[in-house]
């Protein structure tokens, strides 16, 4: 493995025409506008995914510079290379183990002093660097004037000034050509300098020696070097020094010097952020404002996406109708219509929801509101051991579990992400409501609303308890007791749109395949005969004894749980088919289909506009179900069995799409464990429910 310090990259390589793709890494503090910068530099090329081997988001873009192709990689925001969170560990790992060809260090012009502390640390790595001082407009609004030339002089590095949110980034590429390997500028307090010198025989590189002394454990060092570090640390401690505090002292002092040379204050206007915060974080008004913002996010996502989900459903019907008219064997027609089209439709039906959710979340996050919501909700969430930000994905889970699981990505700590993501599948999403209402009205006509409400509450409780217990089991020192409040900003619409489309695209790529496969598998189970019988009936009858202790004895009820694994929407439909007989595929002509699609498009547009105007209203329509099915169901189960069935439907794996989302967010191992856990919890609580009702 080549080490960046022992073997520094050749600076001339930056200039040399080459067909190899260069990697430029954007490194900087959180909220310094790295995403805006990447977007302004590379525009539509934005893509998101996960860092290899982790579930942390990776934002990157391609840049075509004539003969050279550049991959711009956005590293997570960090305050220091010494990791205090998994994100920061990733930054250090990337820079040390896969050194980029160029480091674009992004600084916040409005908070230059602290940004410089990271810069001084990065300069010790020996990688070619350019400084990008972003958010010059905000600094100006604060009455700060940044002298970029003085900064170049003080640090000996090229400096570009930008306002990335307005696309003012022209200075970056010319400055990148001047990139050079910096010479470290910090003179540390004597005891620390001595310790670094003392380590020189083992660790000739200053930056690495400092990181080691400060306590970073994951460094590419020999056993001998590690022992020397240990001795040096102990001797410093004996003298009453903490290496980390000494290093910070040195860096802050140097940062202050540079700051005073390069920053001039002109007047002192009161920061807008502080004045707005007095309202948003008001002791009394804060909570209602927070709930309103939460409600608006929920409404925006689900009210505006509903017409488009309907439109996708309609397109699916038309395509199914067309395949019904094809001159093909019935089994093949059914495969096209109910397997392939339905599978692709299931994946696509999530895209409007996810796109709008990502839009709302990106707005909340980049504008600075998400951090404030976390502030307000923090105390209330502490009893479940969760950070305040966890509130948002939990609430979204009542609409649809899939976007809610993706929304956990806004949580900074992976452990929190895992806990909330595993809690969400228990929250009663919209698709479970038709099953609830159907059974509640058949079996508990008097207390139906109470039963439905109770199920929602049960889901929430099981979810929170899951998060709480996981926090107990996976106890780790997370140092989450503090965070930074970013200033209020108006995020550029183009960045919001590009980020949301890139994230939605990542869902289709990552989750699309598994969902499609599952839909096809269920189609096969329902349609391909096995030993002269439907494998669906065979499987359902085979599973029925398992459900007898729950009071569910009819195989048709048990069977409906199998396609319910694909999507809860189909449970009621499957019950209808298996209790009342199937429907046949209605063929559709070309013109009829096109007219149908046109109408659907008009309706979706109208629906979106209506949704926009009625963001603040609530619509609690319950789907009425056909009475023949109600009558048939009444014969098939007892009230206690029905309640157990409902509890099971509430708590077992909501759908394959949720599973695909979990897989992307928490990884395959945890999602497999989650399915087992969900099935066991569902079974146990259903068993309990069966005993509750006489």
């Amino acid at each position, binding site marked *: 493995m080549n080490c960046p310090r022992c073997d520094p990259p050749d600076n001339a390589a930056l200039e040399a025409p080459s067909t190899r793709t260069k990697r430029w890494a954007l490194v900087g503090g959180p909220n310094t506008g790295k995403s805006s910068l990447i977007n302004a530099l590379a525009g539509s090329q934005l893509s998101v995914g996960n860092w290899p081997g982790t579930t942390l988001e990776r934002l990157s873009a391609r840049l075509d510079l004539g003969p050279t192709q550049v991959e711009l990689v956005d590293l997570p925001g960090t*305050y*220091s290379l*010494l990791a*205090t*969170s998994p994100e920061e560990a990733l930054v250090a790992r990337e820079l040390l183990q896969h050194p980029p060809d160029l480091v674009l260090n992004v600084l916040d012009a*409005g*908070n*230059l*002093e*602290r940004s410089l502390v990271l810069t001084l640390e990065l300069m010790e790595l020996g990688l070619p660097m350019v400084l990008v001082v972003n958010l010059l407009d905000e600094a100006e609004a*604060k009455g700060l004037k940044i002298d970029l030339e003085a900064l170049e002089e003080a640090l000996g590095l090229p400096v570009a000034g930008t306002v990335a949110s307005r696309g003012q980034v022209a200075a970056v590429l010319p400055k990148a050509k001047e990139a050079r390997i910096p010479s470290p500028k910090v003179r540390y307090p004597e005891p620390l300098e001595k310790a670094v010198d003392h380590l020189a025989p083992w660790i000739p590189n200053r930056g690495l020696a400092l990181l080691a002394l400060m*306590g970073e454990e994951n460094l590419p060092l020999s056993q001998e070097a590690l022992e020397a570090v240990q001795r040096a640390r102990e001797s410093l401690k004996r003298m009453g020094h*903490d290496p*980390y*505090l000494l290093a*910070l*002292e040195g860096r*802050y002092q140097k940062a202050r010097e540079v700051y*005073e040379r390069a*920053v*001039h*204050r*002109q007047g*002192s206007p*009161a*920061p807008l*952020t*502080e004045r707005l*915060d*007095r309202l948003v*974080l*008001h*002791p*009394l008004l*804060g*909570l209602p404002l927070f709930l309103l913002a939460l409600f608006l996010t929920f409404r925006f996502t689900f009210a505006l996406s509903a017409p488009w989900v309907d439109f996708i459903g309609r397109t699916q019907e038309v395509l199914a109708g067309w395949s019904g008219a094809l001159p093909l064997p019935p089994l093949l027609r059914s495969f096209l219509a109910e397997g392939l089209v339905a599978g692709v439709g299931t994946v696509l039906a999530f895209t409007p929801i996810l796109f709008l959710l990502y839009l709302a979340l990106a707005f909340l996050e980049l504008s600075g509101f998400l*951090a404030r919501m*976390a*502030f*307000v909700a*923090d*105390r*209330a969430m*502490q009893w479940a051991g969760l950070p305040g930000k966890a509130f948002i994905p939990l609430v979204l889970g009542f609409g649809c579990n899939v976007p809610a699981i993706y929304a956990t990505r806004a949580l900074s700590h992976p452990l929190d992400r895992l806990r909330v993501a595993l809690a969400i599948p228990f929250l009663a999403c919209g698709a479970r409501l038709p099953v609830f209402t159907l059974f509640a009205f058949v079996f508990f006509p008097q207390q139906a609303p109470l039963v439905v409400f109770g199920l929602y509450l049960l889901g929430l409780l099981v979810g929170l308890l899951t998060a709480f217990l996981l926090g107990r089991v996976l106890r780790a020192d997370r*140092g*989450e*007791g*503090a*965070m*930074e*409040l970013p*200033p209020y900003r108006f995020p550029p619409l183009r960045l919001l749109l590009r980020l949301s489309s890139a994230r939605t695209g990542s869902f289709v790529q990552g989750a699309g395949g598994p969902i499609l496969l599952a839909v096809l598998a269920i189609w096969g189970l329902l349609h391909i005969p096995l030993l002269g019988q439907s494998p669906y009936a065979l499987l359902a009858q085979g599973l029925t004894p398992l459900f007898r202790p729950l009071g569910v004895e009819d195989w048709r009820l048990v069977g409906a749980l199998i396609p319910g694994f694909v999507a809860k929407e189909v449970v009621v439909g499957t019950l209808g088919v298996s209790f009342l007989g199937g429907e046949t595929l209605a063929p559709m002509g070309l013109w009829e289909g096109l007219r149908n699609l046109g109408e659907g498009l008009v309706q979706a547009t109208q629906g979106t506009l209506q949704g926009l105007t009625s963001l603040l209203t609530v619509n609690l329509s319950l789907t009425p179900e056909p009475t023949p099915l109600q009558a048939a169901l009444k014969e098939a189960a007892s009230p206690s069995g029905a309640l157990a069935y409902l509890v099971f439907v509430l708590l077992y794996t909501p759908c394959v799409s949720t599973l695909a989302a979990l897989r992307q967010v928490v990884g395959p191992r945890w999602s497999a464990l989650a399915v087992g856990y969900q099935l066991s919890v569902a079974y146990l609580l259903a068993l309990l429910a069966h005993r509750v009702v006489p």
Partner: protein
Amino acid sequence: MLSLAQLSPGHRARILQIPPEKKRLLALGLRPGAVVEILLKAPLGDPLEVRAGEAYLLVRRAEAKGILVEALSVAEPHELPPVRPTR
């Protein structure tokens, strides 16, 4: 000596001591010698919003209890940190 948690909004303080293992607090700018100002308390009294230099930080009570400070004067509204006058 006081802890940061004992101060009310409007108070300023200089940090005297902070456990060196609180690396995140230190990285955020809550280091010995730094002057901070308490800006707000959240609706349920926890966390606190403090300003350290140009940064606005949220600190949970539990963390604030471990940060020892000396109280300075009550801050003027919107007072900014001292900066050398313009050249």
